[in-house]
């Protein structure tokens, strides 16, 4: 890499030690310690995983609308799960389980945090790399091992596990209750390894954020993306350790003969199980103590990207920056005390349920603050409808739609009715799945020019946005109605149930499946756009094509090995100085001092 010219934007630099760039392919691209390469590795892993997960969801949809249909190709790959191409109910449950697991762990947890966070957190805070670069590499490769273990569950005898992504015992704990095989063990090993990888990553993110900020970059001047990565890392640090413990316990139940999660007197296939003393509810407590924060691990980075993008393209400062920071922290904190709302139907005491319910409602407050502030940010702005902006607006829409049904489900009495229905499927897909994915689309289209020095094709991105946006509502909107019927979720066979036929559920399922197929097809537009743009996109060597304010836009695209070429900029202002009066431009970058923004003499000091 040739010597990089310092950016004209920067008012002042601090010199720091420069690391030599590795030369060989292996150390530069495979076992790289460069946070940017690792970020892209995480993103690629997530792209592979998301297509696997989507394929699984399609199988689930196909089985639902036509249980007896034969797909010969499927039969070739899965002679046991789909004999002669017809999916068995067990196969349906396995696909459902793996869809959830792949999406939650390998996509929603890796891409927003491990991908974008890795790439942009150090740059946005003015650092040359993460605090522990080698640990960072280790985190990625551990995650990769976890992914391989999960995929291995498809090919072992007995196939993938079928106890859901929540792995509820006793189904998950008793090998005799499912098809014989080690699928569930591989699943558990994968989750345990994933926990370790995530813990290492979270630790790295927190230390980096606290220790490596450039001079002048106080916490309250950080971009909201950094705040969300920071809080997400704290959630990960506290949550994954508990899941690790739970995973080890369940592995012991399956393989060592303990009975932590298996009560006495269970009868499986007319045989009394030789276990006693445990409780499946214990697993639910341990799992959801992780599981609820996990929801915020998935969505918080999307919130950060949305705030960032809305402000940039509305050309207005984030409305209520401090309130946004406190809301992020409040959502993170409350996320640890509401896990019981996943367990209202577990026979929980109504008094406990009441406490969990009230705490759950409390999350509505910071969520509403964020929503109103997003709208306030756009209000009266000079909005530029670029594709990242569209995805971010889509995020706000999906967050509101998915959040509202959360208010229903947070009430124990209502949840008793809705819990095992499609209403829940609609709720968590909108808010945790699709909203978070829209955050990723926004992030990818927004940062693409910085990462690859090329632009993505805007018209294609917009076409993709509209099809996907309408598509996900077409898929998950009707599921609310299905849930009210109430149509049970997780059932492999629904076509022969009479009361569903009379209410139009079968037709709705067909509609949803068609919408799902079309929406999945639209994702290939994005994949094509992404891959094509990397290799043959419109060149964009400009440092700051979006006229944004944060530090990543002061360095070349793509950034050099150590980001700021041995220098670190000083930061003079908050992250969202837009629509400035009396300034030379309508925005000020974080590293511009007042002289650079207003010329001499500075009329006023800029607040942050």
């Amino acid at each position, binding site marked *: 890499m040739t010597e990089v010219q310092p950016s004209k934007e920067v008012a002042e630099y*601090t010199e*720091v030690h420069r690391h030599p760039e590795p030369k060989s392919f292996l150390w530069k691209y495979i076992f790289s310690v460069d946070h940017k390469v690792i970020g892209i590795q995480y993103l690629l892993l997530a792209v592979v995983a998301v297509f696997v997960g989507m394929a699984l969801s399609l199988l689930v949809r196909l089985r639902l609308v036509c249980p007896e249909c034969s797909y010969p190709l499927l039969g070739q790959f899965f002679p046991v799960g789909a004999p002669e191409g017809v999916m068995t109910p067990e196969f349906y449950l396995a696909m459902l389980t793996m869809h959830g697991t792949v999406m939650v762990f390998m996509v929603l947890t890796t891409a927003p945090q491990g991908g974008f966070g890795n790439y942009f957190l150090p740059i946005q*805070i*003015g*650092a040359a790399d993460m*605090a*522990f670069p080698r*640990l960072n590499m280790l985190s990625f490769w551990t995650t990769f091992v976890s992914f391989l273990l999960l995929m291995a569950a498809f090919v072992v005898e007995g196939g993938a596990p079928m106890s859901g992504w929540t792995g509820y015992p006793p189904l998950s704990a008793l090998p005799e209750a499912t098809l014989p095989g080690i699928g569930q063990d591989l699943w558990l090993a994968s989750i345990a390894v994933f926990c370790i990888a995530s*813990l290492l990553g*979270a*630790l*790295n993110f*927190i*230390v980096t954020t*606290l*220790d*490596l*900020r*450039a*001079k*002048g*970059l*106080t916490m309250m001047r950080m971009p909201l993306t950094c705040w969300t990565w920071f809080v997400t890392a704290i959630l990960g*640090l*506290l949550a*994954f*350790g*508990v899941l*690790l*413990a*739970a995973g*080890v*316990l369940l592995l*012991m139940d399956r393989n*060592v*003969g*303990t*009975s*932590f999660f298996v009560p006495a007197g269970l009868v499986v296939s007319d045989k009394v199980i030789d276990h*006693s*003393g*445990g*409780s499946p509810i*214990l697993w639910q407590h*341990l799992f959801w*103590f992780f599981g609820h924060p996990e929801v915020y691990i998935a969505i918080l980075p999307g919130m950060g990207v949305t705030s960032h993008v809305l402000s940039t393209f509305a050309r207005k400062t984030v409305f209520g920056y401090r309130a946004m920071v406190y809301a992020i922290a409040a959502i993170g904190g409350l996320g640890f005390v509401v896990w019981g709302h996943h367990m209202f139907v577990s026979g929980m005491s109504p008094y406990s349920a009441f406490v969990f319910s009230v705490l759950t409602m409390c999350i509505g407050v910071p969520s509403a603050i964020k929503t109103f502030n997003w709208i306030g940010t756009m209000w009266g702005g000079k909005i530029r409808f670029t594709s990242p902006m569209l995805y971010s607006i889509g995020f706000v829409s999906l967050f509101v739609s998915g959040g509202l049904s959360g208010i229903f489900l947070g009430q124990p009495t209502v949840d008793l009715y809705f819990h095992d229905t499609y209403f829940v499927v609609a709720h968590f897909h909108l808010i945790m799945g699709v909203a978070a994915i829209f955050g990723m689309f926004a992030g990818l289209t927004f940062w693409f020019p910085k990462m690859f020095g090329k632009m993505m094709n805007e018209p294609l991105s917009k076409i993709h946005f509209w099809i996907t946006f309408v598509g996900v509502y077409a898929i998950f909107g009707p599921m609310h109605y299905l849930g009210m019927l109430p149509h049970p979720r997780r059932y492999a066979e629904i076509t022969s149930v009479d009361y569903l036929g009379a209410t139009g559920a079968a037709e709705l399922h067909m509609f949803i499946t068609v919408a799902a197929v079309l929406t999945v097809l639209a994702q290939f537009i994005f994949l094509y756009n992404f891959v094509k743009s990397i290799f043959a996109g419109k060149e964009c060597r400009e440092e700051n094509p979006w006229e944004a304010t944060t530090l990543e836009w002061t360095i070349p695209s793509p950034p050099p090995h150590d980001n700021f070429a041995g220098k*670190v900029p000083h*930061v003079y202002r908050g992250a969202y100085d837009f629509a400035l009066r009396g300034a030379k431009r309508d925005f000020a970058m974080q590293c511009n001092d007042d002289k650079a923004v207003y010329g001499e003499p500075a009329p006023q000091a800029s607040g942050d």
Partner: protein
Amino acid sequence: MSEGHAATMAAPTWRGGGSPVAVGHKKLGMWLFIVSDSLTFSALLLTYSYVRVANDWPTPFHFFPSIVFSTIMTLVLLTSSLTMVYAVSAAHHGARRKAAKWIWATAFFGTAFVVLHGYEWMHLMVDEGMYPWANEYGTPLFGGTFFLITGLHMFHVITGVAYLGIVALGYRRGKWLPEDVEVAGLYWHFVDLVWMFVFPLIYLLSTSVD
């Protein structure tokens, strides 16, 4: 090199960070690891409490030999924390040889703990017929929780002994800094602290009072 560098380690690298977290990467990282690891142990100890309350829990341990033996193990581990304090202190005074000596002493007591613990495991399994899946005292989970929690703790001690060995060699040769010794000390004291929960919960509470 050691003293001057050690002093600058405390400042965050690019001066953006400030009090109260103005500590070096490694120390902060170790504290965070301790936070997450303590949650893992907490989950296991909560599991233990949960199944203990839910079952008719046996109290098979007697003052002799179980409690006497585990008390000796506890004293060995506590002593290792004391020698670690001396090691950190020596390192901060720049006394490399002395610090390395104290670290080796810590590793020795750590190894002694593992040996004693291993002996006790063997005794419980061979003589008492207690296994993770079964025992003669009562609910099988008694053995399950015992071996899981003490096993995970023992795994931490073994890892810690290896870690101490690396630090002792590295610091002795001048490759590592006094702060690295302190960070190793943090880990070691944490492992010791975990035992201070395991010992009363797993041993003392499972003792027959007669």
